[in-house]
């Protein structure tokens, strides 16, 4: 942990196949709480990673473990993933999104793990902080009294630039896109990478669902915006998308977050 007057508690660590960074402002918590946060992420990764042969999910995939025998956490995750598949009409489907048809709940697990890790900070008295896991963010409280966190949406062509700025407090922000790993997201129903959107950024309350819905909207393409804007299940979510032809498109709910001045 590095401490400076301006940024009392910041951490950066590689976990879950990506890089997770954290910034906690006052009131601070015991430094051990941040250890707990990253321990939790490592623990979830060890049990849910599809890249680790010894993870519970990998054993499930190989058929060495049945879903009935799986731990409560794994069964919970699969149940929520099934719920998300229903709500999204299959646009988010942990059982069908991989080309080989194998189970892969990773699209839900990362956001869920970060959300639970954030509760550890909440429980320890932290109020103003963010955790960013590979571009998917939990942002609680404020950067300083009266100023919400300012979240840049990455420019699709330039990794070091942003293309829009959102002001958020007590929200989750998640982005799905194709500017890296072009084939990362395929529509489970058609097996193809969707046309229509370069990236889509969602703002919601919990990161687990926000992340999963971002995946779903991206898989639907432009139709996903219409879905998000009208489905009762997604009433509290807002989307900002960048289209294939390079335009910003956003739902009505995003208006309150968009920062217009520089």
């Amino acid at each position, binding site marked *: 942990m*590095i401490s400076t007057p301006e*940024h009392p508690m910041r951490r*950066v660590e*590689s976990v879950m*196949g*990506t*890089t997770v960074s954290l910034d906690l402002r006052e009131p601070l918590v015991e430094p051990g709480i941040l250890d707990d946060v990253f321990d939790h992420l490592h623990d979830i990764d060890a049990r849910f990673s599809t890249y680790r042969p010894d993870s519970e999910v990998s054993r499930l995939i190989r058929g060495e473990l049945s879903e009935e025998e799986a731990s409560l956490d794994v069964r919970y995750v699969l149940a929520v993933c099934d719920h998300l598949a229903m*709500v*999204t*009409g299959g646009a988010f489907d942990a059982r069908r999104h991989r080309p080989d048809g194998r189970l892969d709940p990773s699209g839900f697990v990362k956001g869920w793990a970060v959300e639970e890790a954030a509760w550890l900070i909440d429980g320890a008295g932290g109020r103003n902080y963010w955790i*960013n896991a*590979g*571009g998917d963010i939990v942002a609680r409280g404020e*950067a300083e009294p009266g100023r919400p*966190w*300012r979240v*840049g*949406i*990455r420019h*699709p062509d*330039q*990794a*070091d*630039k*942003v*293309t*829009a*700025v959102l002001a958020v407090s007590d929200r989750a922000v*998640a*982005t799905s*896109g*194709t500017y*890296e*790993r072009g084939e990362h997201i395929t529509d489970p129903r058609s097996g193809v990478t969707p*046309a*229509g959107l370069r*990236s889509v950024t969602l703002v919601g309350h919990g990161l687990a669902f926000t992340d999963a819905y971002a995946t779903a909207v991206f898989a*639907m393409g*432009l*139709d*996903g*915006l*219409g*879905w998000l*804007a*009208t*489905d*009762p299940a997604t009433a509290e979510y807002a989307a900002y998308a*960048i*289209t*294939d*032809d*390079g335009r910003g*498109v956003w*739902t*009505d709910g995003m208006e309150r977050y968009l*920062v*217009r*001045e*520089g």
Partner: protein
Amino acid sequence: MPKRAILALAVTTVALVLLLSFKTPDDGVPIRGGGTVAADAGATPGATARPRATVRPGAAAVPGATPTPAATSGTGGDTGAATTVDGPVVDTRYGPVQVEISIAAGRIEDIVALQLPTGRRSGQISHVAEPILHQEALAAQNASIDIVSGATYTSDAYAQSLQAALDQAGLR
């Protein structure tokens, strides 16, 4: 300059208020421009089937299928007639969802819900901005960014990201 870019973005935003009305009879859904769509997944508006199409400038669009979008004000130079492209029908648990994209001068002008099942909340579908990819990207330091959201799936991608630079600055 970044400030101006943002301001320009805001000023030229096409304020398309697409308030969807939902009478939602069991046999169909009101469509903008009149008529109804049968609420089964395979139905397409009107008697003739329309091709699925991706939305790109210059893509073969279906011209004149629906009236020119009512709201084209605020875009200045767009005087050409809009063409429309229908997105694929997306099945949701409530039924099919389909949007129609209006394109004028190679740019998206409007996004309209063609099909929405019953039980949907009404809402505005979209705000459509000026093209952003060719604009000057916003300089993060001027915009006072705390965090960056992006589809950064790997640690390698993180290393090249603006978030990494922000983290380094914060840890310094």
